[in-house]
């Protein structure tokens, strides 16, 4: 099968949906003439013209709000944020409008908007540009949040996000944009809310999403050299959440390690951990352990930022500690 990058996979999803539905438009800072700050939208302006591919001023609240208004009238805007960190500027629009309008109207109005862009640390851009707060979005009823960990998932999930009748936030990852995976030529979609077992194993379950899945897989490969077989479950989306696949894996391995680029306090892993103890307590042979970002703003200095984020070494250490817990 052919291999393409995460970036190209997302672009293919956008192209296919632009061709499929004339109410889809792409909007954001530098998406058109500049060809995209991360080149995800490269070539789209030439292909679809400036009515469909629209450069915006640096006005996140203004253009995200515009997209929400347009979606209320039936359009399907796909809004690019250059960094997740910039969505804080538009947070009133995302939380008070995109998420709440359907509820406040008693179900009369839908908001089929997609907001997408990279959310991650690890690129030495300091505290204000390194946020990974999928928990903020997942926390808000009315919003959906998708975190693809590879090119295949990114394409299939993006296509579903665009077709979804609810507001969907797709959190991409700058560190993955240039990496390649096998992606079929023929069209496919991946439903939201279906976790994927990326690696089968019997000794412990590592539950992750987004780039943390890649980190977990790297650690699992290393652990296997010592005969430790880790199962890696990729959540793919945080809301909706496929906790059943997680519970099934816990039933099989009896030990859980959560890997999550969120901070530890009130992060995604806090919720997953709660649900596992509530619904699979009897399966657990050891307390649930977590590897999250260290609980501070993102540090600029490269080696320290690498340590601050979940990385294979930290996952490896936590997995071994988990296995040393005496079974009861």
């Amino acid at each position: 099968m052919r291999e393409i990058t995460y970036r190209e996979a997302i672009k293919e999803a956008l192209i296919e949906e632009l061709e499929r539905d004339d109410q889809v438009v792409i909007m954001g800072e530098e998406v058109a003439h500049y060809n995209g700050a991360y080149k995800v939208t490269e070539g789209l302006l030439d292909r679809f013209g400036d009515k469909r591919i629209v450069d915006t001023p640096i006005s996140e609240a203004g253009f995200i709000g515009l997209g929400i208004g347009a979606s209320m009238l039936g359009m399907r805007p796909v809004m690019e944020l250059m960094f997740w960190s910039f969505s804080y500027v538009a947070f009133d629009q995302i939380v008070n409008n995109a998420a709440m309008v359907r509820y406040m109207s008693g179900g009369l109005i839908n908001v089929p908007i997609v907001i997408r862009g990279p959310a991650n640390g690890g690129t030495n851009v300091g505290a204000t540009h390194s946020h990974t707060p999928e928990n903020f979005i997942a926390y808000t009823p009315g919003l959906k949040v998708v975190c693809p960990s590879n090119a295949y998932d990114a394409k299939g999930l993006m296509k579903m996000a665009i077709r979804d009748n609810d507001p969907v936030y797709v959190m991409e990852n700058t560190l993955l944009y240039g990496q390649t995976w096998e992606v079929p030529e023929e069209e496919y979609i991946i439903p939201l809310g279906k976790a994927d077992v990326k690696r089968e194993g019997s000794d412990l379950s590592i539950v992750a999403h987004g780039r943390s899945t890649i980190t977990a897989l790297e650690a699992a490969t290393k652990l296997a050299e010592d005969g430790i077989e880790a199962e890696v479950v990729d959540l793919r989306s945080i809301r909706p959440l496929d906790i059943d696949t997680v519970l099934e894996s816990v039933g099989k391995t009896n030990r859980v390690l959560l890997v999550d680029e969120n901070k530890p306090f009130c992060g995604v892993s806090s919720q997953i951990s709660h649900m596992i103890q509530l619904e699979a307590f009897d399966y657990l042979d050891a307390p649930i352990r977590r590897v999250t970002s260290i609980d501070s703003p993102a540090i600029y200095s490269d080696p320290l930022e690498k340590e601050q984020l979940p990385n294979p070494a930290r996952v490896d250490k936590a997995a071994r500690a988990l296995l040393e817990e005496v079974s009861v």
Partner: protein
Amino acid sequence: MATKKTARASAGPVAKAAKAKINSSLSDDAKIGLLEEMIRIRRFEERSLRAYQQGKIGGFLHLYIGQESVAVGSLSVLGENDHFITAYRDHGHALACGMTMNECMAELYGKVTGCSRGKGGSMHFFAPDKNYWGGHGIVAGQTPLGLGLAYALKYNNIEGVALCYLGDGAVNQGVFHESLNLAALWDIPVIYIIENNGYSMGTSEARSSKFTGSLAKRAEGYDMAWESVVANHIYVVREATDRHVRYAKETSKPVLLELKTYRYRGHSVADANSEKYRTKEEIQNYQDTMDPINVFRKTLIDEGVIDEDRVKQIEKSAKDEANAAAKFADESDFPSVDSITEDVYWETDNPDQRQSGGRMFFHS
């Protein structure tokens, strides 16, 4: 804010507006209909105030009393392809666009028969079937949404405009300025209407905005058309709105229109001290000389369209309708506990069409 001097000054524009085609071509019945709508809004508001004081309505209640000429006048010139959206002082717009008193009052009571099934409350009325995209609770939060409505019309080559109402306090929010810039930059046919009632909550216009005479003049910075008018006469509102709607449709350009009005009550009913930041005399003076219902009633009597008896009939009928709405709301049911998690996601409300897996809701 308003004095006898401005009242006299507005006599010129009123006479001119009365001669404009949009007003002069109105039938007697249509004119009476406009007066009736304004009276209905006021009686509804007075009845809702009483219900609030009785503890039947919770939360905030931002009354529209004194501003009726704005919603009724501006919405009366819209066509079927035109849309509108407003802020939290939204009852007047709701009734003016044809929503029933029953569904509006029931929403205030938090009942399932309310327009938003009891989930929106006073600040969040919606009627998309009447091109009404809601009342919105965050100051200026609706301004880019109005832009988006007009954007969608333009994108789909529909000849229409979006009216986006905001208060005078909203002109100092960043997102309002982002919206003006985008509207002007992209030639979007949105008409921003500042309903300037003189006070952003308890802070007067003079204390909250740096301006010279008109808040709408800020549009000049965006190379956008603007106008300020004293809006207590419905003919003036209709003439100005109609002219700008036609301009926006012909040019696909935005407009910033300031309609100077006045509210008799506090920012909300909770703002019981509204006389602390303005004098009793100021309020009384406006009511005596500028009240939009009295002014229009007098015009129609002078024109020989209506007599006092008919006005009394209309007032009685509006009062009866408001009382009946309160009774309807009182007797309606509260939404069921199960409905708390309905209307959050389209997908969970349409389970037979659901494509996702996984859980959407989480319990403690």
